[in-house]
C-alpha cells in the first residue's frame, strides 16, 4: 500500500460504485492519476445487486464487464477496497485524506481458485443478498467481484477455519497477521460518489415489515431473480416458500413522507414497473400484480415503458397510499387496507406477497462526512462553490437512476479535472 503515489494532481474518487467507476475512468482515460476508495471488498456498488435495468431490461453486469475491463487495462487507476476516508482536510488543489484500510487477510497472490472457501465451515450472512442467504467465512463477494480476490471474514479470524483456509492455499495468499492500515493521501480534487442505501423498511411501522414474513423490500425482491441469489432465481415468499404470483407493490415506501424521507426517490416507480415484468414473465396469465401509487413518476422516455406495462391486463394500478398491512393468520397472506382515491373505493386486498418500493437514502449520514459540505435537508450534496474541489457524483448528489447517475459522474470528472489542471499549470 505504501507504494501509492498521490499528489495534488491526483483525483480521489470516494466510492467504487458505477458512479465512482465512471468518474475514475473518464479522468484516467485522459491521463489523470486516480485513486478509488471503496468500502466493500469489491467495486461495483449497488448495481451489482440489481438483476435488470429499466427500461431496457438489460443486465447491469453487461456494462460492468466493460467498465471493469477498462479499469483493469488502465494503469492510471489505483483501487483501494475495504477502505474508508476517515478524515479529509484542505481545499481545492490541496487535500489530504486519511484512509483506513481494513484487513482482507488475503493478498495479491490470490488466484481466486476457491480452495480456501472449500475448507472453511463457518457460514455468515451474505450482505450481497441483503442477508437473505449465507456465504462461507472465506468468500468471493460475487461472480463479478473486482478485484477477483477472496476475503476472509473477520469473524473467522483466530478460529480453526482461518487456519484451515491458510493451510488450503497453495499460493501463500492468506495472511492472518494482516492489520488495519491508515494512509494519508494527497489529492487536488475529490469526487464524492458514496451512493445510496435502501431506506430501512422496518421503520414504516404500518406496513409491518418487521412483523409480517411476506412483506419484503424491493431490493430483496430484486435479489430473488438472480439465479445465483438467495432463492436461486425463484419468486417465492419467505413464510412458506410458496410461489408468489399475486404480488402487491407499494410505492413511496419511505419516500415523499415527512415521517421518513421527505424527498421523492425517483427510481422506485420505475423499479416496481420493472419488477412487475419479472412477475408477468415468470407466471404469464397466472401473474396478478397490483401497484399502489400516489403518482407514477416515469419521466421522459421512461413513460413509454409505463405505457407498455399498463397494457398488460395482469397489472393493476391503484392510486392509494396503503394505510396499513395486517397478516391473515390462516394463510400468511398480507392484507392491505386503504382507499383507492380515484372515486373513493375502500379495499382490503389480500396478496401472496407485498414488495415495499423502498426509497433512496444517501449512504453517508448528514453529520458523518469527513469534511464540511453544503448539503440539502435530504442529505444530498448540493452543487455549490462552497464545496471547493469536492464534487458529488451520482446518488450523492440526488436520488438518481443509473443513467442519470452516470451522467452526473461524467460531469463531476470534468469538474475534478479542471481543478487538477489548474494545479498542474501552477506547478508548471
Amino acid at each position, binding site marked *: 500500500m505504501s507504494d501509492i503515489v498521490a499528489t495534488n494532481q491526483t483525483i480521489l474518487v470516494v466510492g467504487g460504485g458505477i458512479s465512482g467507476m465512471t468518474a475514475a475512468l473518464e479522468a484516467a482515460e485522459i*491521463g489523470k492519476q486516480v485513486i478509488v476508495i471503496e468500502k466493500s471488498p469489491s467495486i461495483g456498488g449497488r448495481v451489482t445487486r440489481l438483476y435488470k435495468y429499466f427500461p431496457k431490461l438489460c443486465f447491469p453486469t453487461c456494462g460492468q464487464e466493460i467498465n471493469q475491463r477498462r479499469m483493469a487495462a488502465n494503469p492510471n487507476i489505483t483501487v483501494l477496497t475495504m477502505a474508508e476516508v476517515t478524515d479529509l482536510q484542505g481545499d481545492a488543489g490541496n487535500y489530504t485524506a486519511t484512509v483506513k484500510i481494513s484487513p482482507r487477510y488475503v493478498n495479491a497472490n490470490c*488466484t481466486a481458485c476457491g480452495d480456501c472457501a472449500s475448507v472453511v465451515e463457518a457460514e455468515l450472512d451474505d450482505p450481497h443478498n441483503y442477508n437473505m442467504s449465507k456465504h462461507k467465512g472465506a468468500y468471493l463477494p460475487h461472480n463479478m467481484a473486482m478485484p477477483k480476490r477472496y476475503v476472509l471474514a473477520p469473524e473467522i479470524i483466530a478460529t480453526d477455519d482461518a487456519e484451515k483456509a491458510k493451510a488450503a492455499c497453495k499460493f501463500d495468499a492468506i495472511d492472518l497477521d494482516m492489520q488495519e492500515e491508515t494512509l494519508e493521501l494527497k489529492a487536488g480534487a475529490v469526487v464524492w460518489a458514496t451512493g445510496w442505501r435502501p431506506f430501512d423498511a422496518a421503520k414504516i411501522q404500518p406496513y409491518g415489515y418487521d412483523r409480517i414474513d411476506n412483506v419484503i423490500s424491493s431490493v430483496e425482491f430484486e435479489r430473488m431473480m438472480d439465479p445465483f441469489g438467495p432463492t436461486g432465481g425463484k419468486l417465492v415468499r419467505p413464510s412458506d416458500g410458496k410461489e408468489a404470483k399475486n404480488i402487491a407493490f407499494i410505492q413511496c415506501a419511505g419516500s415523499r413522507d415527512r415521517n421518513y424521507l421527505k424527498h421523492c426517490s425517483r427510481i422506485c416507480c420505475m423499479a416496481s414497473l420493472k419488477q412487475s415484468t419479472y412477475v408477468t414473465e415468470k407466471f404469464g396469465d397466472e401473474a396478478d400484480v397490483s401497484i399502489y401509487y400516489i403518482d407514477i413518476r416515469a419521466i421522459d422516455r421512461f413513460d413509454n415503458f409505463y405505457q407498455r406495462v399498463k397494457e398488460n391486463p395482469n397489472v393493476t394500478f391503484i392510486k392509494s397510499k396503503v394505510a396499513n398491512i395486517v397478516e391473515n393468520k390462516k394463510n400468511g397472506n398480507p392484507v392491505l387496507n386503504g382507499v383507492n382515491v380515484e372515486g373513493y373505493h375502500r379495499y382490503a386486498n389480500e396478496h401472496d406477497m407485498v414488495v415495499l418500493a423502498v426509497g433512496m437514502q444517501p449512504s453517508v449520514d448528514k453529520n458523518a462526512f469527513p469534511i464540511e459540505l453544503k448539503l440539502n435537508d435530504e442529505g444530498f450534496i448540493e452543487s455549490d462553490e462552497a464545496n471547493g474541489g469536492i464534487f458529488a457524483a451520482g446518488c450523492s448528489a440526488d436520488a438518481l437512476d443509473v443513467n442519470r447517475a452516470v451522467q452526473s459522474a461524467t460531469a463531476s470528472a470534468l469538474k475534478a479535472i479542471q481543478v487538477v489542471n489548474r494545479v498542474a499549470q501552477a506547478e508548471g
Partner: protein
Amino acid sequence: MADEKKIAVEKKIGAYICNGCGIGERLDSSQLETTAKRDGKAAICQQHDFLCSEAGVKMIQDDIDNEGVNRVVIAACSRRAKTEAFAFKDVVVIRSNLREGVIWVRPDEDDQRETTQEMADDYIRMGCAEAKYANIPSASGQQSVNKNILIAGGGISGMTAALEASKAGYPCTIVEKSSALGGATAQLYKKIPTRAPYADPEDTGVDAMIAAVEADSNITVFLNSTLTNTAGAPGRFTADISTESGSTETKEFGAIVQASGFTPYDANNLPEFAYGKNKDVVTQMELEALAKTANGGAIKRPSDGKEVSSVLFIQCAGQRSTKAGHLEHCSGYCCSASIKEAMYFKDQNTAIDTTVLYTDLRTPGAGGENFYRSGQNKGVIFTKGIASEVVDGANPTVKFKDLILDEDVSMEVDLVVLATGMVANAGQPTRAEITLSENEAKEAGTEYKVSVESILNLDYRQGKDVPHMTNGFADSHFICFPYETQRTGIYTAGPTRRPMDTRQAMDDATGAAMKAISEAENAGLGKAAHPRVADLSFPSFRQEGCTQCKRCTVECPFGAINETEDGYPEFNESRCRRCGTCMGACPVRVISFENYSIDTVGQQLKAVDIPDEFDEKPRILVLACENDAYPALDMAAQNRLEYSAFTRIIPVRCLGSVSLSWITDSMNSGYDGVILMGCPSGDDYQCHFVKGSAMAQERMSKVGDTLETLSLEKERVQTYEISITDIQKVPQLINEMAETIEKIGMSPFKF
C-alpha cells in the same frame, strides 16, 4: 501496408504453462509443452507452478527482454483473470484458457483425463496459431491531437459545455443558428430552482453566462451561423461554418458536442383545446413571454389585456399519448415548469386562482418534491384530472374529468396554459430511414422530401446527422453509457438528447464536454473510443481484392466507413470502434486488423486436432462474443458448471465480425457443430456495437443453404442470443449441441 509489417517482424513464440490452480494435477504439462513446441512451433516453452506470481511474470519478461520473444502464449487462466499481471508491453499476449476453459468445466475423473487433456492440447495449439498470425497494433500515425471542441448550439447546454471545457483548458467554438446566445432559457422569465430549499423560481442566469462566454478568450462564437459541412473524424474533424450572409469559414476540431436543443411542440395540433382559436389559451413558452412583459407586475392576458385572476394549467397537453400528431413521451420538466409558472401569479398576488390539472405529478428527487410542496404552500391547487376540451368564449372554459371526485366538470378561467412538450432538434433521419420513406413515397406515387434541416451536415455515407433513438431524440441507447451515440466523437447534450430542464441540461452538457475532451485526446493518439477503449488496432484492406460491394460501408454500425471517389472503402479509423463488423461483412475477406483477422481466428479453428469419424470424438466450435457470452462461460466455470469435453471456444470481438468463411472452413475441416453466441438484438439490443449481433444473425440465416450444398444438417450450426447473465444457460446449449450430434451423427468431413 499491414502485410509488409507481417513480413518485417520475425515472430518468436514463447509459450508458458502454469501448473497452479490444479492445472498441474489435472493435466500432463510435459505433454502440453511438447504440443506447444511441436504443433505450436513455440521457440520457447516453460512451465511454472505459479505463473501469475512475481517470479512467474519475471520468467516471461526475461524471455521477452533476452530471448526476443514477441508472441507470448499464456497457458493458464482465462483472459479475464490476472490481466494486470500478464500485461506485457510491446508484445502480443495470447491467453490459452486451461483453467476456466478446461479443468473447471470438466469432472476430475480418471476416465475423463484423456478428453480433458485433448481439450488443453487444442487450446495450446489454438493459442500458438493465433500468436503466429496476430501482430502488435500501432496507431496509423494519421492523427494528431486537436484540442478544439466544436459545439453546435449556443443555448444553456452549448454555453455550459463551452465554459466547462474551457475551464479544463480546451478551446471551444460555438456555432449558433440564431442571432443571439441563450437559446430557449433566454426566453424564460425565471427557471426551476437549482438549489436548496428549492422553494422559489430562480433567475435564469443566462445573461451572466453569455457574459462569461464572451469574456472567455478560449471560446469563439459564431452567431447566425450553421454547419454546412462536417467531414473527417475525431481528432481531425473539419467543419464549414456558414453565416446567413453566405460567408463560410472552415475550421478543424478534435471532437463535437451537439447541443441543438428542442422546439416546443406545435400547439396548433391541439384544436380540442381551442389553441389558435382563443387568444387566452397559451403554451408554457408563451406564458413565459407574458411573465417577462409583466416583469413581476400583474400578468395580463393576450385577448384584452385584462389582469389574470384565474389560470388553469393543462399538463401533458399533446403528450404521453399515442394519438396521431401527439408526442408519445413525457417531457419530464413540464410539471415543475407549471408549478414555477403558477408561482409567477401567486408570488405577485395570492388572490389569483391557479389550478394545475395533472394525471401524475412528476417532480422527482429532493428538489422536485420540495418545489411541489412549496407550490402547494403558496396556494397552487393541484387537481388530478383529464381535460377533454377547452370551450371558446369571452373566457375559455375547460371541460375535464376530476379523477378524484369522479365527475365531469367545467371551469371558466381567464387564462389556460397548455403544458406542451419538447420536440428534439436532432436533425435528419439516417440515410437508411430516408431511403425507406422514399420508397414508400414512390409506392404512394408522391415525392418524399426531408422536411427537417440537418444540424451537422455530416459528410458520412450513412447520413447527415447522429442517428435518432427513442421519440426522435439523439439519445444513447445504453443505460451505463448515456453519451454513446452511433457517431464516434460526436456527443449530444441537453434536450436534443432527451427531454430535460435547465438544471439537468447543464449537468448533461458538462458530461458531454468531458466525453468530447476525452475523445479529442484519445483519437489524437489513435486510441479507440468506447467500448474497446485504448485499442490501437484498426481495419485495413487489400485493395486489389476488393470488389467494391460496399457491404462494409453499409453495415458499419457507426457510419465510420466512407467511399473514395473510385468506390473503395475509406475507413476513418478514429470513427471506428474496432468491432470488426466490416470484416464479418466482407465476402472476399480482404478486411483485417493487426491483431484480429480472418487468420487469427481461422487458423485457430484449423489448429484444432480433429480425430477421425470413428473415434466418436466430435468437435464443437463455439464463437463467443467477448463482451457477454465469453464472460458468461467464464462464470459458468467459476461455478464449476460442466460442459462437453469436445468444445473448443474462440472469443470474438462481436458476432458481427464473424466471417462466413470461418463457418465453412470449420465445416470443411470436420467440425461436427458450430455455435455462435452473440448479444440480444432488437429494440432493446444489448450489443455494444449496436447491430453487430443482428447483422450476424441475418448472415447466419443464409448459412443453411451453404450447409445443404455440403449436404450437412442445418442443426450443426446454431446461433444464440446470450446475455452475460446466462451463466447456467451456456453450458446447457453446448451440451444440447453434443446431444444433437449424437443423434444426427458425426460429420463426414473428417480427413
